[in-house]
């Protein structure tokens, strides 16, 4: 069989050892329980006192979709990549009462952030719908933001990027 004339043009294959730092780093990353999985669904749990009212609120006012509501104390909703779990606290199964008897409650200040295109228009629509605001005067550094409350009093932050807003893209 005649030699392939292209062989003269091919570069020789030279085996190389992978850099040990690279290999070690990769191994550490693969073995680490802390390494975030390649693809995750960011998941938030909020406690609510009235599940039906909350589900309706998140669907109608904030564009969430109901994924499942298998019982009267739990619902799962999605909004884009965000998964929101709603739990009714209490002594029942799924009520998240701790072994020391402490019962979760709605409220607090930790919250999800929802980016909107036009904050003023969104505010107007939410006002018309009678939504309760914790802080309705837009403020912020590189965003304009407001804080509203769901029917159980859980905070939700709406923001619209402003001058200087930085978003890392990948």
């Amino acid at each position, binding site marked *: 069989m005649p030699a392939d004339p292209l062989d003269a043009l091919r570069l020789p294959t030279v085996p190389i050892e992978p850099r040990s730092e690279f290999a070690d780093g990769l191994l550490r990353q693969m073995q680490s*329980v*802390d390494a*975030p999985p390649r693809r995750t*669904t960011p998941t*938030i749990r909020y406690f609510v006192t009235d599940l039906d009212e909350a589900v309706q609120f998140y669907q109608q006012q904030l564009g969430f979709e109901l994924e499942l509501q298998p019982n009267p104390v739990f619902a799962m909703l999605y909004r*884009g990549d965000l998964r929101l779990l709603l739990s009714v606290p209490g002594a029942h199964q799924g009520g998240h009462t701790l*072994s020391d008897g402490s019962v979760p409650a709605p409220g607090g200040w*930790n919250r*999800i952030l929802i980016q909107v295109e036009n904050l003023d228009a969104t505010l107007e629509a939410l006002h018309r719908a009678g939504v309760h605001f914790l802080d309705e005067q837009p*403020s912020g550094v590189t965003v304009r933001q407001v804080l509203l409350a769901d029917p159980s009093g859980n905070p939700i932050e709406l923001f619209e990027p402003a001058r200087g807003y930085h978003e890392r893209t990948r």
Partner: protein
Amino acid sequence: MTTVQVRYIVNDVDAAIEFYTRHLGFTEVMHPSPNFAMLNRGDLRLVLSQPGGQTVGGGSALVDGRVPQPGGWNRFAVEVPDLPDKVAQLRAAGVTLRSDIIPGVGGNQVLVEDPSGNPIELFQPLRSEARLSS
């Protein structure tokens, strides 16, 4: 692009950065001022705000004067492959656990507290449909 953001109120941003990066696999995106930082973990972005002092931003007081505080029960969840192992690691590291391992329908969970007392739910799914990752 990271699309899901959560804001936690913390009393000490530096201590919080240390906690979330060391124990829960977050990476620091920015820490442009002493009272604010932004961290990422996979598709979740966590912004940390320290209350008081400023008049704008996530830690600022409301118009009615109320000042945000850490704590409460609302939280984000982090999936772990081996909950008992992770709990043992965190206990050894001196991290505060608000609960023991709680058996659930879709999986087992435990509530961990950051240095300011904010809860984080560690979750090990027992059913494939309850998994947070793919």
